[in-house]
């Protein structure tokens, strides 16, 4: 009956990870290790054009000269990059399926277990809100739904491997233009060995008729996932895209180093939402995914808008800063984030807003929740270049601590080179109030329900940015993460 901090910690101690199962499929996996030969082997297996192999090799050679970034507020033992396998594909995928009917039923079953029934989804079309899904299993895409309907609207939504084969000029024009191959250590690694991911192209004037979404799943042991996503929204087009991530429960740490590039031309809008639930490791910090991700959007056109929303509850370590380059005049960048860390999870996350065009506007709302021994850092940069006349930024970062063994840190950086810029910054750190808990309990609400209610209330400003179905999913995920007895 007590509501002291120790008990609150006990409540959040026992988290269960419902996506932690392993699918038993025959996989073809390249032996661990990284060399030029491995890069060539990946490219050859995917029958890639020469220019892409060159891109990979340049990235690999650059990567060899780079060192892992150490500035983040996270701690982990050195990663042996030679112990990782850089390519794994279910064997049945070797002759890529032409439609869902040719996809291994075991894989379809996996996605069903995760709550993403690909087949039923197509059948139920018209009954439920429509969401087109691309799914990536280890290193390859296993199928994309609703392709026909999207094609009618002129929208291209497929795996990036397929895009390289079918639309090589489009990929070549944009790949690496937002995140250059040598951008940072993990981006360089990704550029060398990326295996699959999603490709989206929305032509001029088209409002994408449904939500697009990709589910990423790591299944194989000792495999890294290096996906690459490229989204291009042409003039006056509009798209909302969501990614979700899960992995089996394993004792080893697994590496996930993705690159996401967004390009928005004049008057285009891209809304990119993430619900990240990679395996976080156990209570003592054994296992879990290292999530080292580079995500960047380029508001290349005037009045374009890119909005990032992320709910980060998984991974042992999260290192990601979805950013916006506000190049076009009057362009808008947004970043809404909820990050939850507990047990031994660590997150160093935030955003960069680079104001280049005139009257560019950015909004940052970050909500960090730390429980158990979780460590949480918000790291954000707002840079206003000399030409960005009348730039505006609003930043709000709030941290909520549950218990007294966790930590929250805020690292806001600003670089202002135009005196007309207006910046606002608000930051709060609060402990989940014992008085709030007692208040809720005195009305009949059980302690753990009260904790999850208070945390959800804390995150409301971010959840309301998510597409409806995913907001519900995110809310549930957060509750499961916080409740001791659920799952």
């Amino acid at each position, binding site marked *: 009956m007590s509501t002291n901090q120790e008990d609150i910690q006990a409540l959040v101690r026992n988290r269960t990870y419902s996506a932690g199962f392993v699918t038993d499929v025959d996989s073809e996996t390249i032996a661990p290790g990284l060399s030029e030969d491995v890069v060539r082997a990946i490219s050859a297996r995917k029958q890639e054009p020469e220019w892409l192999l060159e891109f990979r090799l340049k990235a690999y050679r650059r990567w060899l000269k780079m060192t892992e970034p150490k500035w983040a507020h996270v701690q982990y033992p050195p990663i042996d990059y030679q112990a990782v396998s850089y390519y794994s594909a279910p064997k049945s995928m070797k002759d890529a399926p032409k439609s869902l009917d040719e996809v291994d039923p075991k894989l379809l079953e996996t996605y069903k277990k995760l709550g993403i029934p690909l087949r039923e989804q197509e059948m139920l079309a018209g009954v439920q809100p429509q969401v087109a899904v691309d799914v990536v299993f280890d290193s390859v895409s296993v199928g994309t739904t609703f392709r026909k309907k999207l094609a009618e609207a002129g929208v291209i939504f497929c795996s990036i491997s397929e895009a390289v084969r079918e639309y090589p000029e489009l990929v070549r024009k944009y790949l690496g233009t937002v995140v250059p191959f040598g951008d940072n250590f993990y981006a360089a690694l990704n550029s060398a060995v990326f295996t699959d991911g999603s490709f989206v192209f929305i032509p001029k004037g088209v409002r994408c008729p449904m939500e697009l979404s990709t589910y990423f799943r790591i299944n194989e042991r000792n495999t890294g996932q290096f996906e690459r996503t490229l989204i291009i929204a042409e003039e006056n087009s509009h798209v909302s895209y969501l990614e979700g991530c899960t992995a089996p429960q394993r004792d080893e740490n697994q590496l996930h180093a993705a690159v996401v590039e967004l390009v928005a031309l004049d008057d285009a809008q891209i809304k990119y939402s993430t619900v990240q639930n990679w395996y976080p490791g156990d209570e003592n910090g054994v296992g879990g995914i290292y999530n080292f991700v580079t995500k960047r959007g380029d508001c290349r056109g005037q009045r374009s808008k890119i909005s990032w929303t992320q709910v980060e509850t998984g991974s042992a370590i999260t290192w990601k800063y979805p950013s916006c380059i506000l190049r076009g005049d009057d362009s808008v960048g947004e970043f809404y984030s909820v990050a939850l860390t507990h047990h031994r999870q660590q997150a160093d996350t935030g955003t960069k807003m680079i104001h280049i065009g005139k009257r560019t506007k950015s909004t940052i709302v970050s909500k960090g929740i730390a429980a158990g021994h979780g460590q949480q850092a918000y790291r954000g940069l707002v840079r206003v270049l000399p030409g960005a006349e009348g730039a505006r930024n609003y930043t709000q970062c709030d941290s909520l601590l549950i218990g007294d063994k966790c930590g929250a840190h805020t690292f806001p950086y600003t670089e202002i080179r135009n005196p007309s810029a207006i910046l606002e910054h608000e930051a709060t750190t609060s402990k989940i109030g014992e008085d709030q808990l007692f208040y809720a*309990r005195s009305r009949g609400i059980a302690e753990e329900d009260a904790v999850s209610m208070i945390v959800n209330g804390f995150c*409301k400003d971010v959840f309301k940015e998510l597409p409806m179905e995913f907001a519900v999913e995110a809310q549930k995920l957060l509750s499961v993460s916080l409740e001791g007895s659920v799952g």
Partner: protein
Amino acid sequence: MLDIKNLHARIDGKDILKGIDLRIGAGEVHAIMGPNGSGKSTLSKLLAGHDDYTITQGTVSFDGADLLELNPEERAAKGIFLGFQYPVEIPGVSNMVFLKAALNAQRKIRGEKELDAADFLSWVKHRVKQMQMNPAMLSRGVNEGFSGGEKKRNEILQMLVLEPKLMVLDETDSGLDIDALKIVADGINLMRSKERSVLLVTHYQRLLDYVKPDFVHVLAEGRIVKTGGPELALELEEKGYGWIQQAA
């Protein structure tokens, strides 16, 4: 209904309650008055299950159950309601969500069927109207940005929605202007019945003009030093507490 015997409680090594005896029967309204620091708020919070206090002696039974064995949510489900002196804000959680969760949690503990969204909505709207509140408040965060008076009114709204058996109201009248006081008092009177009891903790006589108590107790230095009828409150208003403490 409520039977407190020889209750002693302390916080941070300091004795606050030093032997309280109090019986509240069904349908009765009791008022507890007393100077600051006499233990009034401690007693209220303790009844609701706050665990900052250590109970060193005594018993509390409620409807035949040992109240001290129950956690706050179980007490709520059994029918104890505490109107807070300082209602707490829960940002981002709407009053509607909060009240529905509370009512259904209580019903679940009692083994009753939970209310669905439509039934709950019509019930809560009915109560909002009785409290003369703007229904728009239901979608605002719990007490978020509410004025002192709005918070107190919201406490009474919660009470009307949850329909408790024993209403413990800790200085619900403080910080209210006369119109708001009237509405709050009407809310309390609406709930009075043969089955329900009220324990009003207050500094002032004025609430008692609207909610007529059956018994008035004076709490001083952790003990009930005097008990009387409504006339005792008037006497206190006139003479203050000094004379009783001296007499005790």
